[in-house]
């Protein structure tokens, strides 16, 4: 994740200014839009990273794609272009979302499961999150069949691993770690 450090600083500055102008929520929506758009469009990602495309053209394209954004967001485009840092735009967006969520006490709980969550399960997980962190959180469901069963819940820096896959891996390691075989 090259450029993450720089991105964190841009995001911090952006949030600070947005706070002063009372537009944090609007800018956050912009950032969600930007990060979703870039994530879903390979063309756009390549376009932003490409060193052969002129900065002016990148700027025009961005303003065209994100026409309805807040003035501060277009200001961000401007400054990133001036500093030749447009490639870290998605990282800035991600960092901003994180900082915004931190500021408002909103947590994102990433739940990895083998099959999609039902509403009933989601409620149970919400309860578990509250038990672990004391706050409610927005649940984001990631489907990964390789965990076989159970679920992995990750909120910020805390991870609750209740997956069958992880237990099987532990068992495998336990069996491989054989002290009856000489290693010298």
């Amino acid at each position, binding site marked *: *994740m*090259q450029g*993450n*450090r720089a991105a*964190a600083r841009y995001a911090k500055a952006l949030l600070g200014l947005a706070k002063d102008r009372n537009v944090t929520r609007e800018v956050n929506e912009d950032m969600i839009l930007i990060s979703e758009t870039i994530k879903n469009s390979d063309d756009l990602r390549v376009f932003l990273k490409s060193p052969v495309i002129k900065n002016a053209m990148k700027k025009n394209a961005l303003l065209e794609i994100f026409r309805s954004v807040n003035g501060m967001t277009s200001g961000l485009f401007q400054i990133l272009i001036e500093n030749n840092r447009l490639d870290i735009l998605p990282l800035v967006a991600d960092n901003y979302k994180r900082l915004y969520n931190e500021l408002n006490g909103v947590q994102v709980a990433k739940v990895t499961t083998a099959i999609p969550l039902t509403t009933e399960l989601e409620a149970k997980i919400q309860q578990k999150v509250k038990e*672990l962190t004391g706050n409610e959180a927005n649940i984001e469901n990631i489907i990964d069949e390789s965990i076989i069963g*159970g679920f992995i819940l*990750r909120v910020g*820096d*805390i*991870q*609750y*691993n*209740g997956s069958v896959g*992880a*237990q099987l*891996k*532990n*068992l495998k*390691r*336990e*069996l491989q*770690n*054989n*002290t*009856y*075989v*000489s*290693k*010298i």
Partner: protein
Amino acid sequence: MAEINPAEVSAILKKQLSGFEAKASLDEVGTVLNVGDGIANVYGLANAQYGELVEFEGGLEGIVLNLEEDNVGVVLLGPYKQVKEGATVKRTQRIASINVGEGIVGRVVDTLGAPIDGKGPIQGETFQMPLERKAPGVIYRQPVTEPLQTGIKSIDAMVPIGRGQRELVIGDRQTGKTAVVIDTILNQKEFYDAGEPVYCIYVAIGQKASTVAGIAKTLEDKGALAYTTIVAANASDPAPMQVYAPFAGAAIGEYFRDTGRPALIVYDDLSKQAVAYREVSLLLRRPPGREAYPGDVFFLHSRLLERAAKVIADDDIAKNMNDLPDVLKDKVKGGGSLTALPLIETQAGDVSAYIPTNVISITDGQIFLTSDLFNSGVRPAINVGISVSRVGGAAQIKSMKKVAGTLKLDQAQYRELEAFAKFGSDLDPATLNIIEKGKRNVEILKQAENNPYPVENQIAIIYAGSKNLLRNVPVEKVREFEKDYLEFLDAKHRDVLDQLKAGKINDDITDTLTQVAKELSAKYKK
């Protein structure tokens, strides 16, 4: 291949599985930003501590060595090919440590205390000892008073080592450094047999696995593995494992030291550890200094060697020792000791390089081994002139002190006059006498590998040498005479030897020794 008994296999599997609990875990985690050259930068892990062990997916462990604003630098303790960007890293909440117990004696373990000798898990109760621990303060120490017998005549006579001392063994490659320390370990068998073992720890750093296996075999064959632990970080292990191996050894030694028992630790060798540390430091982008070693390489060795100590005999004071691990608090006894024998390999005899000067200044003396002596057949190739022991003299037993008191000076005088003898010029009888005696003393101090001498035998033969009782024995027959003399004493005058061993020396004893030496040497007269 040996036949495998199916019952045995399932018994082992059962044992392995008994420790396995299938339950969900709640962990603090971070995400790998980048990984390469054995270093990983991890985003998150906001509460990770310096020196904490972290666990990667797949069980690979690492030590946190860099704490930065939004990420931590982790050195990996294993192959890093399996670690990928974006992988999760778990905190283990424990500072790098090693599990030590009585069961670790006689085993070969790696830096993290995992047995690698194929003899199964460490038996019995174990205690978690931190790898990095502050050395005991001044109040909890006492001066060195007891000898640590190395079984090597020239060391015990002229550069004596005391329990709790740090004595450097330094020399070029192939000068017999390892042989000296292995002999020292072998010589502790006497104490093991007497029921007062000196626990030995041999730390092999950056050596070939075959060399380590060879040393383990030698120790086992001579019955020395029963009181020895080997900590091995081989050349093929990652650099951080080699850096921490001496600390793991010191942690094992401290367990014995703090429970009131004597221990001896050998670091073979610290030059390789310094090189491994340089590798880690440079990869962590710490600025290089002299010879590209980082600025804190002196501190690396000083904090390690400072942990060798003679603990005060008073239990009540020892109980309050600083930085005691909680698990050990109610087991602490005074009077224990940890003697350290670090080894340093020099390049072409250059002792003024960075690492040798550092370690010379930290230790309480040094034993120099030189290739000139080695090649001229003086083995062990100890250069007595420049070898010193700053505190060991106080620990020498009385009889040895009395007998060997003049030996070092005599030999210095001999070496000075030896040059004249080479001119072949006519020498006055006094000079000739010194030279002839010196030559015989050099022969007396020679000793075969893996053949440590009990202290009473050392005293007996050195007495004969320093009193010039061998003047009638031709130089090339000195070793033959030594053998006869010691065998005779052992057979006919065991009581005299026992008294010498107890530190006693009086006219009766010296008369007997003189008598025997004179009688035997008459046989060699031409």
